[in-house]
């Protein structure tokens, strides 16, 4: 698979202006993401996940190493708009990233900045709003929307610029369960239907299982790279980085500790259900 996003020994350190101390936030990160991939990044608070997310579209530039987006180095200032058009960034708090008071105007914000003509803009905005299912709300003021709807508008704002990749920094952590489902469905839909590359930074283990590849971050570096299945079957890794598996897998782990023979663990709830049912059958037979 060709490398759409490529991190080459990337490190980032910030300098405290008061006492000239240097804090290393990212250390020697190597990463490659192909077109249409869905990867997720997990890790404890303060491990550098958010800093990493800002490196994708050149909001932050690495202090060491290089980042190539489709072959363009993020340090190249003349091509910065090209990079930002290719890679959209969605933040945690929907209120902080909606710029305009009306849905449609906000979605158009990025295109307006690029000086795109009105007809193309109209087309792109409508298309973006339709693909997140917010087209009916295009003339609503943003303060009347729910959290999930606001976050979908924020995604539409990024989508309107026709990005090839969307980086989402904990997009669901401030939403209620229904809002969270709306946003996750939207993300999965974008990945499957339009082949948009997704980098999802998250805390939530259930969200991990949507992705094809999981990167675990700890203290500024990527310590492990696994598929969700591998990760969930590896209790050592889960414990070490303080990750809690989804409750279905937790149940299987508990059963295993009780002495039952668990054959497989999967992030898919249905497979887990089947496994638990077969265990129950076994118990029944034994009695």
């Amino acid at each position: 698979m060709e490398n759409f996003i490529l991190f080459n020994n990337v490190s980032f350190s910030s300098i405290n202006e008061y006492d000239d101390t240097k804090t290393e936030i990212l250390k020697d990160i190597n990463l490659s993401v192909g077109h249409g991939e869905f990867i997720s990044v997990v890790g404890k608070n303060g491990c550098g996940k958010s800093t990493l997310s800002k490196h994708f579209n050149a909001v932050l530039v690495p202090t060491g190493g290089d980042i190539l987006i489709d072959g363009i180095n993020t340090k190249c200032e003349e091509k910065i708009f090209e990079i930002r058009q290719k890679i959209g960034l969605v933040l945690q708090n929907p209120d902080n990233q909606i710029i305009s008071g009306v849905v449609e105007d906000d979605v158009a914000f990025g295109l307006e900045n690029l000086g795109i003509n009105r007809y193309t803009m109209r087309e792109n905005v409508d298309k973006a709003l339709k693909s997140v299912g917010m087209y009916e709300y295009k003339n609503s003021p943003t303060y009347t929307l729910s959290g999930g709807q606001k976050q979908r508008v924020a995604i539409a704002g990024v989508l309107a610029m026709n990005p090839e990749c969307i980086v989402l920094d904990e997009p669901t952590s401030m939403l209620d369960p229904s809002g969270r489902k709306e946003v996750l469905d939207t993300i999965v839909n974008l990945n499957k239907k339009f082949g948009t590359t997704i980098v999802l930074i998250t805390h939530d283990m259930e969200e991990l299982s949507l992705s094809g590849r999981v990167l675990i971050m700890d203290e500024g570096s990527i310590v492990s790279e696994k598929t969700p299945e591998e990760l969930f079957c590896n209790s050592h890794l889960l414990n070490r980085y303080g990750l809690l598996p989804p409750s279905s897998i937790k149940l299987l782990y508990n059963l295993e500790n009780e002495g039952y023979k668990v054959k497989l663990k999967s992030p898919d709830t249905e497979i887990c259900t089947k496994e638990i049912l077969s265990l129950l059958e076994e118990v029944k037979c034994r009695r």
Partner: protein
Amino acid sequence: MIENVCLGQYIPGSSILHRLDPRIKILSFVIFMIISFMSGNIFSMSILILSVAVIILLSGVPLKVYFQSTKYILFLIFLSCVFNVFYDYGEAVFKFWVLTVTLESIKNSVIIILRVTSLMFVSSSVMFTTSHSNISFAIETFMKPLSIFKINAQDIATMITISLKFVPIIFEETNKIINAQRSRGADLDNKNIIKKVKSYIPIIFPLFFLSFKRASDLAVAMESRCYNNIIKRTSIREFKISILDISCLIYIIVILIGVVYCEYLMI
């Protein structure tokens, strides 16, 4: 939805005022400001009130919302005018202890209340019917001549849009902080004014802190959506002056002439 409309928020609709060009609305509002401060006698006052009533009617927003969104400011105006009544000059109608009420002062108070209220209502009607980006477009247009002084009209317009957008958000956040501090036992209903002011410190600090955090997030969001001052911005909305806009200007100019006539030319 209408219950949580606070000062200066956009209410979507399709009334005549909604359809007007934002530039015309702002221009008319400036003329209206002149009108309201010129009118001082009973004839011009009635023209003023009548024209405000027409504007409210055309905005398609219920009168209740106007009162609701301006109630605190109206209360302040009313209070200051009550004090104004006791300002002692002219012929006394009523005397009590050190307080003297004169015909002049009553008249003045009533005029001020009517002027400021009508100004508040007309400005609200503009805010209710114009979305933020339209307002910023109008401001940008009017500020274009300032580019001679190297002032970037586009930046100022964006700044205004953002501050308007954050009014309801900061308002909501203030309420949240107040409730959070109350639940920790903060005494916010103290009658003692000094204690009351002091008790608001733990509300103001978190509010500032959170606002700065918001601002830095917003900067990242704007930057990642290519906000810049190199490329000339375009707008998704198209603005054309229509017959409706011209008739609105004519309407406001007719009122201006009427008020000038009542004030200066009538005997």
